[in-house]
């Protein structure tokens, strides 16, 4: 085998083999790859290792997209198979989680074409700023202190907060779930969803407003807050 001047290595998903793209794409062993003086540092992780680290977050995101557990599990499994087969296109050292999530989103669109083709027609004219803040102030709930909203969100509980997030229209839920659950930056969300950063920004802004309104409605609907008497009912 002729050594290339500069090895450009792509990891093989099936085992410890590399493809040297600077040498007509020939397959080389890990040993040969590591022995090349000019080779860039090879990844020490396999597809399974990388996937194992993202399966939990991927399931959490799939659950917000599909809104039911069996479909979420199927979506993650389908994504894993697609990613495994396409692992040759993953650039070692780049953001595996974002790469995997972009495949998950495409797989979701493949199953639910309506989510992609039919943007919601929600009116944003009546979405107020600082909705939870102003409602909390009116109801006599805490609005000051180091973590003033924590008590309200704690009392709502995980299930109701998730319920409010799930109630967002699909395009806002997809952006908001990446933001809240995965801690992705605007740029990463844009890459995962293949939309401009400006669209991420505006959807996130509106998504937050809708979420605040939904959280307050859930809190009052479940009787957590008495709107007539103010403050907590329990």
């Amino acid at each position, binding site marked *: 085998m002729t050594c290339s001047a500069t090895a450009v290595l792509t990891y093989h998903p099936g085992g410890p083999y590399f493809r040297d793209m600077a040498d007509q794409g020939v397959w080389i062993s890990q040993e040969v790859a590591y022995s090349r003086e000019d080779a860039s540092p090879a990844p020490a992780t396999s597809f399974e290792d990388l996937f194992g680290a993202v399966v939990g977050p991927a*399931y*959490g995101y799939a659950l917000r997209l599909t809104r039911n557990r069996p479909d979420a599990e199927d979506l993650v499994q389908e994504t894993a198979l697609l990613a495994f087969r396409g692992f040759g296109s993953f650039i070692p050292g780049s953001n595996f989680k974002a790469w995997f999530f972009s495949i998950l989103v495409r797989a979701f669109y493949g199953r639910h074409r309506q989510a992609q083709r039919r943007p919601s027609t929600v009116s944003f004219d009546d979405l107020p700023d600082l909705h*939870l*803040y102003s409602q909390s102030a009116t109801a006599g709930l805490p609005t000051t202190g180091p*973590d003033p909203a924590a008590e*309200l969100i704690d009392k709502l509980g*995980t299930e109701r907060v998730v319920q409010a997030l799930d109630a967002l229209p699909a395009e806002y839920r997809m952006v908001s779930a990446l933001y809240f659950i995965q801690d992705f930056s605007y740029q990463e969300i844009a890459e995962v969803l293949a939309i401009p950063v400006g669209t991420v*920004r505006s959807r996130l802004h509106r998504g937050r407003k809708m979420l605040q309104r939904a959280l307050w409605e859930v809190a009052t609907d479940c009787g957590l807050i008495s709107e007539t008497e103010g403050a907590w009912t329990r």
Partner: protein
Amino acid sequence: MDPVSRFTCEEAFRRLDDYLDRELSPEEMAMVREHLETCVACTREFTFEASVLTSVRHKVQRIDAPPGLLERIKRELGRQ
């Protein structure tokens, strides 16, 4: 900082989301921070909004994959 270049409440509020997400330029981050140092009302609103984001995030990030999902998928990958 030059008083002329200071943000008003409205200008700071318009950047609330981007400020909390650290998506502003370093210069704008500094200008919002400087506004908050001198404006009690905006500080209260910004603190409340940050608290909402942190609390919601804390709740929705607690969801784990079902036991057995990873192993099931690994078995499926092994058949490929």
